[in-house]
């Protein structure tokens, strides 16, 4: 069947009462927004992929050794143990976000609030950990060498996404407390969850590339 029939003014088979019809319109509007949002995330993946390509390229085809030599000394590796803890914090926030959305769908408001708060807290903790990491990474700063350039640009972009995500989730939390969403119509929460998962998964790649490779 063709798409968006209700949006175009056609009745979808049966269903004449106001609520049904409005529900169909809601559903199709939501589907369009969802598709648009997923496409936006896809293009954001390309943004990160390009910088990841740059990092791999500089590391494997340009640099003679890695980490690179600066003034006759080889740069140290990054602190894997600390980053592992910080990664767990971020992945954990992804899981709590998932359960926040599930609880919203099932109407268990208290659990939703718990998980949502936990997600925002963990997200903020991750940002704090990143700040600590930036202060302690001994790799010559952003503009010192290609290691620092790749590391600070990629994790900086990611950190910016996390920051935007924390604000995004805080706004969603506030909106849901104000009754903007109900348990059938909550597209904002879906979008926030997808965005937050996306940010986590980008970190999986960055964690591997910078700390484990």
């Amino acid at each position, binding site marked *: *069947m*063709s*798409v*968006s*029939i*209700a*949006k*175009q*003014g*056609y*009745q979808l*088979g049966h269903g*004449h009462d*106001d609520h049904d*019809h*409005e529900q169909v*319109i*809601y559903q*199709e*509007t*939501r*589907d*369009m*927004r969802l*598709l*648009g949002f997923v*496409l*936006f995330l*896809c*293009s*954001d993946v*390309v*943004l990160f*992929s*390009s*910088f990841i*390509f*740059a990092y791999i*390229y*500089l590391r494997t*085809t*340009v*640099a003679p050794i890695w980490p*690179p030599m600066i003034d006759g000394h080889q740069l140290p590796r990054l602190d894997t143990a600390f980053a592992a803890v910080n990664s767990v914090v971020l992945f954990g926030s992804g899981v709590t976000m998932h359960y926040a959305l599930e609880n919203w769908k099932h109407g268990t408001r208290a659990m939703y609030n718990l998980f949502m708060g936990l997600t925002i807290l963990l997200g903020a903790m991750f940002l704090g950990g990143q700040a600590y990491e930036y202060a302690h990474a001994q790799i010559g700063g*952003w*503009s*010192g*060498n*290609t290691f620092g*350039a790749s590391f*600070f*640009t990629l994790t900086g972009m990611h950190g910016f996404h996390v920051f935007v995500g924390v604000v995004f989730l805080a706004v969603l939390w506030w909106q849901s407390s104000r009754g*903007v*969403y109900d348990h059938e*119509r*909550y*597209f*904002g929460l879906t979008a926030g969850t997808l965005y937050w998962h996306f940010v986590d998964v980008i970190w999986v790649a960055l964690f591997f590339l910078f700390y484990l490779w």
Partner: protein
Amino acid sequence: MATIAPGVKTGPYHAVLDHIHPEPTSFIRKYIFSIDHKVIGIQYMITGGLFFLIAGMLAEVIRYTLLQPQGQMGISAATYNGVYSMHGSAMVWLVIIPLVTGAFGNFVMPLQIGARDVAFPWLNLLAFWMFPVAGVILFSSFLIGAPDAGWTEYPPISVQGPPGTTLWCIAIFLIGVSSTLTGINFIVTIYKMRAPGMTLTRMPLFVWAQFATAGLSFIATTALAAALLALFCERVFNVPFYDPSRGGSPVLWQHMFWFYSHPAVYIMILPAFGIVSEVLPTFSRKPIFGYKMIAFSTVAIALLGFSVWAHHMFTSGMVPWLQLPFMIITMLIAIPTGVKIFSWVATLWGGSIRWTTPMLFATGFLITFTLGGLTGFFLAAVPADYHEHGTYFVVAHFHYVLYGGSVMGLFAGFYYWWPKMTGRMYNEAMGQWHFWITFVAFNCTFMPMHWLGLMGMPRRVPIYDPAAWYVFWNQFASISSFVLAASMLLFAYNFWSSFRSGKIAGPNPWGARTLEWMISSPAPYYNFKKIPAVLATPYDFGNPLPYLGLEAAEGATEATPTHSSHPVPTY
């Protein structure tokens, strides 16, 4: 409630859907910050047209400089560098890409799929307004020293280049965001908002082209954004990405840049393919030959377009073993392109052809684009490319595909849809003169560049061998380019006078069959009084129109839209 087609029913419209946004009446909401796709499309056209004028004048400065071989025309080398860099950048990002997607995509595509607007009208408004802002930023770089490394801005020259290069980064980044947003908007629109019964294989071919183009732009453009961000950081914060003395690599820029810019070539040409696929069957009065083959080859070109970028880099010192696969995949693109050319020629075969201006431009497109495609084959061959890289042969090639392809396609589309935009006809005789002058002057301008390039004349250099042969062909090309520019006056005058006092066109002056011609001209604010149901492809000339529900709409006397395209606000 009546069943008008299998699975498609009409009935009394519902109270919820009667939530009408009336047409805005204030000048600002109607013409400046409109969310109507048709107005936005025309805004793109006007803005892109102005940028075309500026970028075209820059081209004439280039040709003026080259009238004499040793810089006797008084244009300094530094100015020349800025001029050709800005000419290329503006033509690609401020003229062709916004015109083929923003202008024609916005104006025509929703009409052709039977929608009342795009999926996200406000996003469309936002994307449009980034475009003039980006243009102003780009051209203002002339004030502080224009970028001088060509439109490709290869490092390390661009890293050390004049301050305007930073503005160039910002402007291109902005236009890239705009293009990405438009791409997302179009994909959702085409995927979700087609009229009932319009399956994917019943879509007009222009819509197929926009679909593939939108896919290219929302995936590839962010790669350019990354390259620009890195260049920006390197110029402003001294972050080493591209500087070889600090462990960076100029070749890295070329990879990231061409990963976008090769697909961008198809962003620029696919919509022109789409326009030609609409114009040729209409004026041949014949079903398009090989509908599915044209549609699928469009998608094939878009997909292959992602895996050929390094053919721009054969001489850059990239890994040698990669040259062969890139050469082969590049040559593979000739297959879907050849399928299209064949199908278009076969559409003409045995048709009752009417030589109107759009038809002339479309057939002109067939000739010049094919020539440009053939030289592309030379450039894709690694051994030949070693000789031709960085010469005027390349300039000739991409002007044949971009001017002879995209711009000729744009002209065809402009003449074709002008009656739909304004409700008036242009002057046919003047339009045909415009075509013939354009076609002859275009070939005289760019054809000599092939042999100039083969003889080794490098691009982007204001001085050249003063031997009589070089001087003659350069002057020949320059004078032809002045004629080409002058032909634009005819074009502008034609549309100005048509806009003022052209003959009233009526809903369907060409006897075309796609949906946009089924409604009055200019198209009403809400596009369709009633959304029709679609039963077949639009190209079956000789059969009854494949639309249901239009007759009732035409019978209605008052223009009362039954509901708006903007659904009830929901979250």
